[in-house]
């Protein structure tokens, strides 16, 4: 087992090493340093400490795997009742890009019930082979049976890397498969790149997005990664199809499960503005209560929700629970469009961590523009209806 050895004689000031360790694993006792169980083997003490003070001792070299035995970039087809989740196409796009770099084929793994015709659709996106496991037992996602199918696929086709959407299903299925294959899995990757030697460079945020980590899986295959929806770009759907559908068989014994799906209930639309991805905020620039209709319409078109500033909540135009700000809710949506909001500090404090802030206001000096990423100087009554029209036209097309 590799380990860290401290050469006490090369340590002039133990405190230097104590300070370097970000995990508090360096302990000083009677002038002697030791490493405790908080050590994460990050080896910063080796890299940043006094030369030679801490040594990384590797024991016998691990046997290297034969990477050439692992071929193809596979995408797990995420779906509910055959309805393919769009993250799947985004991942196929990424898989094609990664595969072309190392001349590998692109695979899709599709498991469910009565899905054969749905598999056709995948051939419009540039997949070389779609492996279809179509059985009644696989009608709904069940962790045990789905894992077994996944295992069967991996063992038979040995893909080099597998991409899974970070959906509700993908987030539980991928780790289960990774553990069964005793391989690495990197969650919520935002950047994926393929190295010449078929190692996948995976970059992901940690600590609530406060740091980014670059991760490799150098000596295990398959390399597994999950990616969130709307991170990668989906390729254009082509008219002609490409690739082939391969029906697969599996032993029924393997797809037994200890979970019974009793019922499936349509979800009520999300009620809390805190959990919305998109918010459209009405401010005092909205002159009449009736005019909220266009704000609502825009929010609906973007699958988002309506929020408001304090004066509108106080006027009773919008429910108090939709009020953003210090005296209301704190929100952090992916997109927030403020309409006629001046940007009082008590409002801004409730939304300034949003990923993308678009603000529409006639007053170019409005304080909201200090916070906004996109400052649209103009009239809400002019811009919003035109935007609605455009979105409707695009959706109709």
């Amino acid at each position, binding site marked *: 087992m590799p380990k860290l050895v401290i050469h006490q004689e090369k340590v002039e000031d133990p405190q230097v090493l104590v300070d370097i360790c970000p995990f508090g694993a360096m302990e000083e006792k009677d002038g002697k340093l030791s490493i405790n169980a908080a050590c994460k083997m990050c080896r910063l003490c080796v890299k940043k400490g006094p030369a030679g003070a801490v040594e990384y001792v590797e024991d016998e070299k691990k046997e290297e795997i034969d990477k050439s035995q692992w071929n193809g970039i596979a995408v797990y087809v995420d779906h509910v009742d055959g309805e393919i989740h769009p993250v799947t196409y985004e991942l196929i796009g990424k898989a094609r890009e990664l595969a072309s770099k190392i001349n590998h084929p692109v695979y899709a793994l599709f498991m469910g019930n009565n899905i054969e015709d749905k598999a056709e659709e995948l051939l419009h996106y540039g997949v070389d082979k779609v492996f279809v496991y179509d059985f009644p037992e696989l009608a709904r996602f069940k962790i045990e049976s789905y894992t077994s199918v996944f295992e069967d696929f991996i063992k038979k086709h040995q893909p080099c890397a597998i991409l899974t959407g970070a959906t509700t299903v993908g987030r539980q299925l991928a780790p289960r498969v990774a553990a069964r294959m005793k391989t690495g899995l990197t969650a919520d990757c935002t950047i994926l790149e393929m190295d010449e030697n078929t190692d996948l460079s995976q970059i992901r945020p940690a600590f609530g997005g406060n740091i980014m980590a670059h991760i490799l899986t150098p000596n295990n295959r398959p390399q597994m990664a999950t990616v969130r929806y709307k991170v990668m770009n989906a390729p254009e759907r082509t008219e002609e199809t490409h690739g082939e559908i391969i029906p697969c068989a599996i032993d029924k014994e393997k797809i037994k499960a200890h979970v019974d799906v009793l019922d499936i209930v349509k979800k009520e639309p999300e009620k*809390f503005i*805190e959990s919305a991805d998109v918010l459209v905020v009405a401010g005092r620039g909205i002159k009449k209560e009736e005019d909220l209709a266009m704000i609502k319409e825009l929010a609906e078109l973007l699958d988002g929700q309506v929020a408001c500033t304090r*004066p509108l909540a106080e006027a009773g135009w919008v429910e*108090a*629970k939709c009020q953003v700000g*210090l*005296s209301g809710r704190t929100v952090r949506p992916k997109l927030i469009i403020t309409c006629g909001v001046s940007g009082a*500090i*008590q409002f801004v404090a409730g939304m300034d961590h949003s990923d993308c802030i678009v603000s529409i206001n006639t007053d170019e000096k409005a304080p909201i523009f200090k916070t906004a990423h996109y400052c649209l100087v103009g009239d809400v009554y002019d811009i919003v209806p035109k935007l609605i029209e455009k979105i409707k036209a695009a959706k109709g097309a």
Partner: protein
Amino acid sequence: MSYKKFDQTDLEAIKNIVKDEERILYAKNINEEYSHDELGGASSYPDVVVKATSAEEISEIMKYAYENNIPVTPRGAGTGLVGSSVAIEHGIMIDSSLMNHILELDEENLTITVEPGVLLMELAAYVEDHDFFYPPDPGEKSATIGGNISTNAGGMRAVKYGVTRDYVRGLEVVLPNGKIVEFGGKVVKNSSGYSLKDLMIGSEGTLGFITKATLKLLPLPKKAISLLIPFKTLKEAIDTVPLIIKSKAIPTAIEFMQREVIIDAEEYLGKKFPDSQSDAYLLLKFDGNSTEEIEADYDKVAKLCLEAGAIDVLISDTEEREESIWKARGAFLEAIKGSTTDMDEVDMVVPRNKVNEMVEYLHNLHNEVDIRIKSFGHAGDGNLHSYILKDDLSQEEFEKRMAAAMEKIYEKAAQLGGKVSGEHGIGFAKKPYLRESLDPETIELMSGIKKAFDPKNILNPHKVFQG
């Protein structure tokens, strides 16, 4: 009182002084919010609003107003609750919100000098970034420092750290005649004549316009832990407060809260409170430099509460836990407001050992006056906030019953040795109650002080004690 009606000539004169028309709001350009404050009991539009940017500018405007006998109303963020910043006589309103600069952090004297329009939340964040602490912590974080000083705002940490007054070292003030003067300074001690600085604090903009403030800072305590203590009854909870105070452990805050107000907050915030086993709670906060230090501090209090009949003592020691409790506590005012159609408040303060008597009185008041009253407050400093709710009553009936209820509440508070306002001030709304509570000689002295500062009575007339 008769003042000159503000007209076009005056507007020209103001434009001449300010030289930036964007900062002058006139007639239709005056937003509705400038006509009232947070509770909206009093409503009146100014003729003009000037968003001032310097003491010199305010001085020029005051001089002009003084010479021409035009009333002037100072205003910060407009978050007051008693109508102090409402322009009863119209005239000129000077809005300090653009004077929001932090001028100097003096680490050698542990002071910070700010313009009056800096918001409390901005000040708190700024000093914390520099590892300092400005203890006054009123619930309304988007109030200005100028406003806090003008009402001598108190807040949640008064038990241990005192109120705004205890942190004001020096003030720069524009007098009603336009002269700029300085009261106090960076000095720690000061026995040099009458403390005019202290007269300014809590004068609600009737004596002068604060244009700069030098505030005292403390080193930032590194950690805070709260205790949420359920009791079987509110009486038991509040009876424990004097014992806590007597024990010489000093929490920063001792609050009391009842289930019904907590439920309002849960609904308002859409978030559950972390405990529901009781109807009455005390909420204590301790601060210090390490968890161990604070634990040693609260241990005695926890034991004492249990001996006094507390059901348990619950520990809130992380950001999430603190937020689940204090966000609810902070939302009480808005939550109660959201639970009714209209309301007005009573902000009396009584000696700490009389809190229970006062709370019980409030609780039973509905037997005498048929109106819904909700209360919460700072049990540790005797400052209670009671809200008288309109619900389905007609405006006329509401006003009648509210007046009757307030009359009784203030009478009871006075009997217990209390005062009309603990931290919100008198402003326009509470004048009759203040007059009733003070003897004529005191009013006479206040009147004399007002005359000495403002012989023409042009600065914020009709406030505090004036008819």
